[in-house]
């Protein structure tokens, strides 16, 4: 995915996006990127607060994709390039942490209300490196296409999250008998009264597993406003939909949550890899949950020229557990070689990989990369499909010219 000028084709064909209308953000001159699917031209813009250049998927509420070259620069995704995904019209833009409170209520012995300062002062510090990936990352690559945010592969990022364990906060309130789930709500709200407030829930045992946490820092800094300042739920190994931003309300439920965002939205087919045939009926649907392994090339892309001797590199993650190995093929999948893995930042983190290769001949070649996680789950050879465009994790391939 290379930034390119809008010369010629795709953009000029769509006059309504041409010329002055490109502005939208006054005074800024955007670049462009061609995401690798039909209708994939996007602006690359600065101008969002605390953000560098991002691929614009929607201005309001913001959907911003991380340009893929960012993932070549390090194992952690910088805060100012970390992807952004909001659902509802009213998102927070002004927060004074001294006024902000996180309330814990419901089936608890004692309701509590905590300021960010109290969280920092009164609870043990917990830190974990974890990938946050949108459920619909790579949706634009689904075939047949499905509706929703048309992301390429950049709706993900890896950060070092610092904060407190959710378990410690729940225990401070005292989880009552009969508690089943824990529900989380942020500050964002809809514009219309009927719009369902975004809330997500976890089973009580999951919420108390000692890994789910409330983060007040991301890569050593307060979270950017667009990534959930001042507090955000971190659910290692699970899709980003659960990582509630601007977390302000925790409710311990005595029954299973039946709110829209758990019962009607963010559902996947209860099949291996959330994979069904387009049009398939009568499939049991369940809330999306654990992530699956993925791996990517970061220093070569489609149509790029590579040398006969070349070090290939990229990133991988295991999903809900660590990366066991990353395998690379330089002959379209006929043979595979294990890549050398970089530093281990924990099982939920990106893991860098690299492999020096020597191509047998010049000419076109297809490279592939696949990760196998420590539970033995490997990326599939065939892409999955479901109507929501969730959980894509097919083996990645790039076509290059060996010169």
């Amino acid at each position, binding site marked *: 995915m290379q930034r390119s000028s809008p010369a010629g084709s795709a953009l000029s064909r769509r006059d309504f996006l041409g010329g002055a*209308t490109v502005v939208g953000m006054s005074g800024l001159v955007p670049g462009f990127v061609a995401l690798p699917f039909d209708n994939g031209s996007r602006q690359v813009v600065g101008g969002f607060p605390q953000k560098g250049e991002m691929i614009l998927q929607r201005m309001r509420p913001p959907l911003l994709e991380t340009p893929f070259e960012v993932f070549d620069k390090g194992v952690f995704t910088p805060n100012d390039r970390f992807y952004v995904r909001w659902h509802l019209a009213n998102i927070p833009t002004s927060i004074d942490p001294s006024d902000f409170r996180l309330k814990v209520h419901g089936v608890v012995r004692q309701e509590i209300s905590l300021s960010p300062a109290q969280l920092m002062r009164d609870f043990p510090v917990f830190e974990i490196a974890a990938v946050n990936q949108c459920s619909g990352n790579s949706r634009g690559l689904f075939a047949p296409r499905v509706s929703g945010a048309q992301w390429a592969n950049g709706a993900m990022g890896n950060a070092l999250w610092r904060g407190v364990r959710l378990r410690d906060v729940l225990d401070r309130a005292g989880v009552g008998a009969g508690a089943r789930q824990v529900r989380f709500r942020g500050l964002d709200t809809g514009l219309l009264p009927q719009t369902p407030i975004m809330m997500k829930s976890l089973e009580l045992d999951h919420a108390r597993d000692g890994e789910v946490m409330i983060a007040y820092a991301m890569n050593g800094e307060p979270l950017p406003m667009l990534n959930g300042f001042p507090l955000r739920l971190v659910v290692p190994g699970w899709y980003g939909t659960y990582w509630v931003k601007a977390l302000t309300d925790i409710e311990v439920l005595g029954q299973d949550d039946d709110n829209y965002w758990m019962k009607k939205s963010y559902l996947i087919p209860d099949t291996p890899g959330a994979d069904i045939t387009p049009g398939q009926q009568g499939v049991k649907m369940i809330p999306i949950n654990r992530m699956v392994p993925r791996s990517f090339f970061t220093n070569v892309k489609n149509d790029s020229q590579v040398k006969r001797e070349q070090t290939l590199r990229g990133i991988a993650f295991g999903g809900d557990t660590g990366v066991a190995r990353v395998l690379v093929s330089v002959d379209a999948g006929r043979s595979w070689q294990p890549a050398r893995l970089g530093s281990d930042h924990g099982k939920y983190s990106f893991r860098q990989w690299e492999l020096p290769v020597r191509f047998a001949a010049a000419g076109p070649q297809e490279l592939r990369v696949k990760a196998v996680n420590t539970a033995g789950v490997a990326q599939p050879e065939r892409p999955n499909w479901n109507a929501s465009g969730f959980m894509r994790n097919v083996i990645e391939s790039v076509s290059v010219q060996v010169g």
Partner: protein
Amino acid sequence: MARKTLALLMVAAILAGATGSWASPRMDKLNVELPTSTLLFPPGDGASIANGQCLMCHSVEMVLYQPQRTPTQWVETINKMRTVYGAPIPEGEVNALAAYLAAVIGHAGPRPKS
């Protein structure tokens, strides 16, 4: 003396690290200003419905970026906006809006080279 003080400070720093008492990031009040979108739907029969009914909750870009879809598929999306999110789109305008979106969205030509 100075050397001893320095050594003590270093020990203190190591202990602080080991016990997890970390200099938390200063959390000052944060105000941000979001850019606004001035983009409207492309001209065509039904553009006024789209501009009038869709842009109150979200800007136009994600809609423009959808793949080509049939009027029936757009009716499904529009009805989700109406019934789930409460978009005040009159029932009598649903088909016209769907026909418009099917006609203008996703016809961006051949697949771009990345």
